[in-house]
Every structure is written in structure tokens, then in C-alpha cells.
């Protein structure tokens, strides 16, 4: 009885990735947002970006809102680390223009509508 209780308590404690509580995770997220926000004017200059500053800010907000519902601290840490990796690549100009424009690309290709596109796609 006591052993199962201790096992259950041990299973509830998971090894953290970076943050130990919600407050720390929240700080990391807000810092990442601030870093990206400050980088946007330089992105527009470095990449000769076709989008405007407001569009970039909207897209940044959208990307953060996508994961608004996440509660698990380890998942939040992982997302922050991925965001930081993207930021590093963007700052050092290891990405190219198409890499950044991918944020605006649809994730699903549109289905072919006219006959020839359907034929070339191999419709059933």
C-alpha cells in the first residue's frame, strides 16, 4: 500500500527541461516574445522582406497564440527552445527569405479544381 503511494508520488514528479514552475516558464515565453519583437525591424532590413512591420507583428502574435492553451511545463519549455532556435537562425542570417516566408505559407496545398490539374494530380 505504502509502496504504491510512493511510486505514484514519484511518477508525478518529472525531470524538468528548463523551468521548474509555471512562473518561470511564463517568463521564458515573454522573453522570447520580446526578443522576436525587437528583432522584427532588423529582419525587414536584413532579408529585404516583402512584408510590413505590422504584418510581421501579427504573424508573431499568431504563432504565439497557436500554443496559448498549452499547460504542460515541459512542452512549454520545448516550444520556447524551438522558438529560440528559430530566432538564432534568423538573427545570424542562416535562414533565407523563403525560410521566413514559410510562416505565411498554407500548410495544406489547395485541392485541384479544374480538369487538367486533377488529371496531372492523378484523380480517381
Amino acid at each position, binding site marked *: 500500500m505504502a509502496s504504491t503511494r510512493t511510486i505514484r508520488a514519484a511518477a508525478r514528479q518529472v525531470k524538468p527541461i528548463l523551468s521548474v514552475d509555471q512562473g518561470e516558464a*511564463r*517568463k521564458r515565453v*515573454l*522573453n522570447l*516574445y*520580446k526578443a522576436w*519583437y*525587437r528583432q522584427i525591424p532588423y529582419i525587414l532590413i536584413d532579408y529585404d522582406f516583402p512584408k510590413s512591420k505590422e504584418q510581421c507583428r501579427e504573424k508573431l*502574435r499568431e504563432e*504565439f497564440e497557436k500554443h496559448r492553451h498549452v499547460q504542460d511545463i515541459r512542452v512549454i519549455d520545448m516550444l520556447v527552445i524551438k522558438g529560440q532556435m528559430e530566432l538564432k537562425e534568423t538573427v545570424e542570417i542562416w535562414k533565407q527569405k523563403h525560410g521566413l516566408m514559410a510562416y505565411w505559407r498554407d500548410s495544406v496545398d489547395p485541392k485541384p479544381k479544374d480538369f487538367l490539374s486533377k488529371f496531372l494530380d492523378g484523380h480517381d
Partner: protein
Amino acid sequence: MASLSRTLRFAALIRPSAVLSVVPRAATVGCLHTLTSRESRLSNTTLLSAITKATSGVRSYSAKEPLTLDLIQQRVMLVLKLYDKVNPDKLAVDSHFMQDLGLDSLDHVEVIMAMEDEFGFEIPDGDAEKLLRPADIIRYVADKEDIYE
């Protein structure tokens, strides 16, 4: 030609309207273009720095205007009114960002960043998360700039 454009650019910092009236009709398109771009950059800065640039005519080597509590309040409220997610009718000195104005934490980060840009000094995260009303921001800036309350 280069010296003419340089003097015009310097003069544009002081009195853009006067310079535009003085520019001769024979001026090249390129020269006019530098004037309009300089003028548009001037209109982007805050009211206060525009006024000091117009009146002083002397270079200010990162010197700041003498701040008073009232001036800080005006600047903070102006920045908040210009923020498009804030409803200017609901804005008051003691209105809470999250509860009264309906901003979320990312908007709050943007507001704090705007304040950092306005007053020219970094606000660390520990302090920033406590600044939830314009009154708090005004008091914080006054503390940092050593303005007597």
C-alpha cells in the same frame, strides 16, 4: 551639390517647414527626397523631442530633457493612447491593463517595450510584471529618473 544637400539636411532638423519654402525650384528630385524622408522621420519621433530639436538648434549629446512628474504622465498616457489595442475612452491613470483595458500578457509586454523605447532605459522582467497600471509605470519611471514625488 553635396554641400548644399548637407546644409539642407541639417536645416531640415531645425525648421522643416521653413526649409521647404526656401528650396529652389531647380532643386533635384533626389535632394527633395532626402528632405521629405528626414521630415517623415521627424514626425515619427515623440512630440517632445521634435519640439526640442526645433527650438535648440544645437546637438544634444544624449542629453535628456528635464523630466517632471507631470511630463512623465503626459508621455506615458500619449504612448498608451497611440497603442491601437487600447481603447482611449477607457484609459485612465489607474486603469488596470488586464482587467479594465482587456489586454493580455503579450500586449502588456508590448506596452512595457513601448515605455522602454520612450524613456530610453531597460525595464527588467521582475519589475515589468509588477507594472500593471499607468500609475505604476509613472511612479517607476520617476523612481528610476530620481524625480521627487
